[in-house]
């Protein structure tokens, strides 16, 4: 296995600190892994993008990437930020969506990407997602904001359990 393939494999296994059922690759924040020869061998350059601008987990992601790659024998690791294009929940992989469901979280639907003015939405922001625990369609929005920037809070009126929905952006 080439150094690049190995670096991609190691970086691809690092998990999101706030949703650890997802790898950074499945979440879509891992945007690139490059290996460049330098004076002492190889340096790894990893590119990540924030889910939300203020996401405080970026520093942890950076530290985790550096440590896992160091452990794998890459002594020099540089983590770069990619701002363009902005992260979209559409980038969460099928495997990631399955992992979210498995963990009792509701995966996002398709995001809207209007190029022009954004419509004001005074009604429900999206069709109510089915309960990830019991599958019931009888769910109600509790709050558009949750424990992390990327999640909304819902409640199932059948099984009465609360659950989190990863927001479309």
């Amino acid at each position, binding site marked *: 296995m080439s150094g690049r393939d190995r670096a991609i494999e190691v970086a691809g296994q690092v998990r999101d*600190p706030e949703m650890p059922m997802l790898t950074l690759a499945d979440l879509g924040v891992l945007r690139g892994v490059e290996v460049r020869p330098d004076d002492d061998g190889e340096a790894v*350059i990893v*590119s990540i993008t*924030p889910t*939300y*601008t*203020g*996401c*405080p*987990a*970026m*520093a*942890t992601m*950076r*530290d*985790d990437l550096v*440590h896992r790659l160091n452990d794998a024998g890459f002594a020099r690791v*540089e*983590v*770069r*930020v*990619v*701002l*363009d*294009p*902005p*992260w979209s929940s559409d980038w969460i992989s099928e495997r990631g969506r399955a992992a979210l469901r498995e963990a009792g979280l509701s995966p996002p639907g398709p995001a809207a990407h209007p190029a*022009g*003015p*954004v419509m*004001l*939405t*005074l009604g429900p*922001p999206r069709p109510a997602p089915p309960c990830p625990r019991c599958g019931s369609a009888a769910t109600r929005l*509790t*709050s*558009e*904001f*949750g*424990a992390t*920037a990327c999640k909304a*809070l819902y409640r199932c009126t059948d099984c009465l359990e609360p659950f989190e929905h990863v*927001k479309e*952006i």
Partner: protein
Amino acid sequence: MSDESGSIFDGLIGGDSSQWAFGTDFEDPLAGVDTTVPDGVDHGELAGYCLMLGDDALIMSQRLSEWCSRAPDLEEDIALANMALDLLGQARLLLARAAAADPGVVPALPDGSPVPAEDALAFFREAEAFRNVRLAEVANGDFAHVVVRLLLFSAARLALLERLRGSADKVLAAVAAKGVKEVAYHRDWAGRWFLTLARGTDESHRRLVAALDALWPLQDELVATHPLERSLARAGVGVDPASTRDEVDAVLDQVFAVSGVDRPDRAPLAGVGGRTGRHGTHTEALSRLLAEMQVVARAHPSGRW
């Protein structure tokens, strides 16, 4: 507990900082991002423009974060904190962008201070160096007040960021593209609560109208043009806020109409000799806000405590 063999806190100092959830080091929010200033754009003007957009976000974020633990229920408390966090993230990138464009805008700190440029801008400038609109800085009131403030603020900011996505400055364009998605959620939250309070009880309606009446004179500054904004709009880097006026009006009128609330008929709050927040002329509320926001950083300008 502590004796000559050391303090129980020894293990917390030095060593591997990754034991902390969010690390202890400062990091560059623009690490690896191309911050080249577009040809023909004045570095100082670009920095000044970034301060306007960044200070709006920073000061609004600070006012929203003052709501922590004070909202009517836990969900709204979390919502306000989330929106404060989004705006803080935008402020951080914009202040970092200002510093990268023109390091001359960054206050000087003691030699060797590890405090990054965006923190120096946030914590070591005096009130008159801030370029935020006055709507962002006035003291908090009741829940209706924060709903109205956020509606007016996010309606204008969203319309502005929509246009800024086409900026010739790649950093501003990227910050705007991301910000649009975030601020759309803020505007919807404020719009829904505006409607809820307007159609709620007599008391919630009364409070909503009172907040709207009190804040309305500050709305105009959001869509008024400072010469710097006009200059950068001409260069294809910035957006003239006046170009958003019709769209902002349409959104606000839509909210007012479904809520059964009249558009206020109050004149804009005049500046002092024509100078407003964008010029660095603020209300006394900003000084009080900064006193609280900056006190810890100013006590430790070397970034260690």
